[in-house]
């Protein structure tokens, strides 16, 4: 098999696989499976980027997305109160608006694909795309990327400061208590203050 034919076959496999995996995100019934089908789709896109000689970008996409999708799966499981994420639950909702949004975005992207004039500047194979990317990031576009980077970093630090257990607004557990055993409309009661003789008892047992 010639080299260019092998590249073409690999492109069709990875690109088709990315589309199928992206479709499966919505066909599966578990948050963890949905997150990892999305990761599979990104892996296909990363492989296509490697085939397009954007090796660094393709590999970084895989590196970032493997971590991101895992964190996303964990957060979804935490917020959904579904301890393992294995319980079946539907991954699609708001069917009407979802269909409209899907059709509009597909039509828009298809229009761009058909109408837009893509630049056609063949490069020699000895060009180093990683070095060019570095020059671009730290050269002409440095102000844009550094502004975005510092803003994101400040956002992360700020959200940690607000959300951490001993954060900006005091102890996160202040005023919270265990949920009542009987269903009730009232909020959970304040926890009982710890009894003084609790430690005393503990010492005898120890």
């Amino acid at each position: 098999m010639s080299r260019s034919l092998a590249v073409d076959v690999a492109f069709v496999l990875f690109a088709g696989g990315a589309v199928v995996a992206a479709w499966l995100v919505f066909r599966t019934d578990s948050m963890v499976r949905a997150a990892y089908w999305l990761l599979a789709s990104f892996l296909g896109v990363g492989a296509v980027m490697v085939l397009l000689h954007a090796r660094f970008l393709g590999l970084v996409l895989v590196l970032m997305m493997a971590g991101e999708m895992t964190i996303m799966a964990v957060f979804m499981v935490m917020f959904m109160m579904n301890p393992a994420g294995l319980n079946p639950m539907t991954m699609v909702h708001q069917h009407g608006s979802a269909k409209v949004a899907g059709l509009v975005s597909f039509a828009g992207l298809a229009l761009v694909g058909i109408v837009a004039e893509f630049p056609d500047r063949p490069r020699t194979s000895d060009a180093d795309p990683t070095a060019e990317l570095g020059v671009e990031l730290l050269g002409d576009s440095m102000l844009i990327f550094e502004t975005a980077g510092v803003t994101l970093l400040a956002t992360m630090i700020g959200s940690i400061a607000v959300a951490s257990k001993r954060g900006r607004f005091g102890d996160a557990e202040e005023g919270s208590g265990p949920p009542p055993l009987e269903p009730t409309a009232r909020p959970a009661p304040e926890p009982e203050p710890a009894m003084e003789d609790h430690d005393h008892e503990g010492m005898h047992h120890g």
Partner: protein
Amino acid sequence: MNPVAAVGVVGGVLGAGAYALAVLDGAAARGVAGMPRRWADVVVEPARDAALLALTRRSTTERPDAQAWALAPGLLAAMAGAAVASVPLAEGFAVADVADGIVLFGAAMAVVMVGVYLHGWSANSPFPLVGGYRFIALALSYEMPLALVLIAAALPAESLSVGAIVASQAGSWNVVRQPLGLPLYLVAGMGLAFWGPLDGADGADLAGGTAAEVSGPARLAWELARRFVLVAVALMGAAVFLGGWHGPVLPGAVWMALKTLALLALTVAIGHRVARVRLERFVVVAWAVLIPLALVDVFVSGALAL
């Protein structure tokens, strides 16, 4: 390189490394237990254990995610193979010394996290699930130091290729030039393969963690896969920090093998001598101590490379 030969080289390195690791581990276990080391036994024992696992019946759980469960060891083994392919085994001999080898290693090791979590999650059983979550907490803590020490190692070479990083160590090895690099890398590497003190994912305190419900050939595949990851970590460590093929008298491939075995032996010794650390303490240490140390490593290495 011919694709068949490439698969053979990667498989051979991983297989030989995993067997050597098992032999070293058996010898160290006997040493710690005060048992006599009968080398004939020590050398045969891994093969005997593997054969026993291969012939044991496979167990299953109620409604597992069978595909993801079967995928997990394959994912780990494939990522270890990808990492091994990017490391030059001797001067000018690598399966694929790609220009972004260090990034490839980082990407492959990030996917390992997915494999371990899936292995714990898909069993549909409490202990494996807890093991999977433990691994995520561990992985999010070691990823940053791992990436930073590898970046620091790439700075003097002015290249992301593993071959260029080895070539840049002709004068002095990175373990001397960047004394913080190898210790931090080994901590991260033991986390990656959930080995020894950082074995939270498959720990005995969780009845085996992610592997608690796995037996028979599937268990064999999993134990092999995590050893493949450790072998890939040791091979990359030997290339990036211990000067790779550089060394007097002996040929480069022999030096590479010796350095990899030395790192494996060190990992095994730590695994048997250091107690398992509590994960919540490790997370604090990783973010408050290891990441700043890795940043110091990057800044000092960068300043020296200028």
